């Protein structure tokens, strides 16, 4: 583990202190050590948190929500009216998904989600946010130049497509339901979920076509 490459004593570091990564390594190690010595944190709890977000809670959750909405009109309607309850019915609840709102792309409207003020993101259905979602370029530009942002993801919308940007300024967490791709009538829910990318549920992408997902 890289955190063991350096001791606690600042004098035996061989790295440069203008390097945020190695500085942060030492800083977080000091924090964890002090808090553990005080009995305030349990390192095994940290392992359990990390394992949860590495293996259990990720964009597959959201993809299953979308696939169900594509195949079950009643569920889609519930998701529109009460996303928190509809999503909870599939077992996805909890931290940073306590209050959910699902927004549906249509032929003429594309939805895009951002948090300009921090990094609000629907963890219960998408897992931990990618670095770019939390970084200044995306947060600054999504609300003023969404087409420019989307182009950087390789997504070029028709000029007349309306773009709705949802700035997550409160505790509602937004999930974009992308349009169901053509040529997917024969696919079951699990196969459909394979087409639903993380970015398509943020709005920086579209669902994959069956050909593209192979």
């Amino acid at each position, binding site marked *: 583990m*890289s955190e063991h490459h350096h001791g606690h004593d600042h004098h035996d570091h061989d790295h440069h202190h203008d390097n*945020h990564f190695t500085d942060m390594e030492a800083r977080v190690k000091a924090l964890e050590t002090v*808090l553990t010595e005080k009995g305030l944190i349990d390192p095994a709890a*940290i392992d359990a*948190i990390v394992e949860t977000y590495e293996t259990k809670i990720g964009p597959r959750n959201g993809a299953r929500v979308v696939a169900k909405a594509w195949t079950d009109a009643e569920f889609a309607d519930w998701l529109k009216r009460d996303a928190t309850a509809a999503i909870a019915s599939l077992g996805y609840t909890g931290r940073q998904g306590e209050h959910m709102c699902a927004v549906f792309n249509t032929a003429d409207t594309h939805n895009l989600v951002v948090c300009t*003020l921090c990094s609000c993101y629907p963890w219960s259905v998408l897992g931990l946010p990618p670095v770019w979602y939390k970084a200044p370029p995306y947060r600054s530009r999504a609300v003023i130049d969404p087409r420019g942002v989307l182009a950087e993801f390789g997504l070029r919308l028709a000029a007349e497509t309306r773009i709705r940007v949802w*700035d997550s300024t409160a505790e509602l967490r937004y999930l974009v339901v992308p349009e169901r791709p053509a040529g997917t009538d024969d696919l079951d829910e699990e196969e459909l979920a394979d087409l639903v990318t993380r970015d398509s549920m943020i709005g920086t992408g579209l669902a994959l076509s069956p050909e593209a997902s192979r």
Partner: protein
Amino acid sequence: MNGPHDLGGSHGLGPVAPETNEPYFHAEWEKRALGVTLSCGAFGAWTIDESRHARECLPPATYLSASYYEIWTRALETLLKRHGFVTQAELDGGHMLEKGTEPKRVLKADMVPAVLAKGGPCDRPVDARPRFVVGEQVRTKNFNPTTHTRLPRYARAKVGTIEAVQGSFVFPDDNAHGRGESAQWLYTVVFDGGEIWGKGADPTLTVSIDAWESYLEHL
């Protein structure tokens, strides 16, 4: 506060640079930073609003050059010191020197699944009826508090339309500063791109925010 975090509409911050097949973590310390931050949140000593404000209060140059886990870590140090859990000397030395504040609870491994599955719901009942109705035009207030607020600068003093009444929620502007939860009605307010950005705005653009009732006034 008009801090470095309030980024909507800023220019010059560079390309978005999405990473193909991005890993959840880019270094081991990021994993520990996530776990330590969530574990300390479980103390019950501060609210999510106070922690957001601690992040906003980082010096702008630090904030803008830091990764988000670095922002979390630096703000966590502030919170731990403010609430008496650790001292700067302990952080400098990397070891415990004295006993500090007793937390309400310590997050143990066996508690993690239930704590993450529960989260921290922020909806609270209020007695008053909502002052605004769906479809009504409203103006957001113009204010510039040095304290915490969730009304972004770009959306102040703008005319928009109430699209939804989302329920009543803890009011972060008070809760971040220990002034209580002060629950208020929350509304989704949608603005035309031109109202926010003026000349040159994308004519196909609408932007919405979720606004607490006290951010809004009747037209």
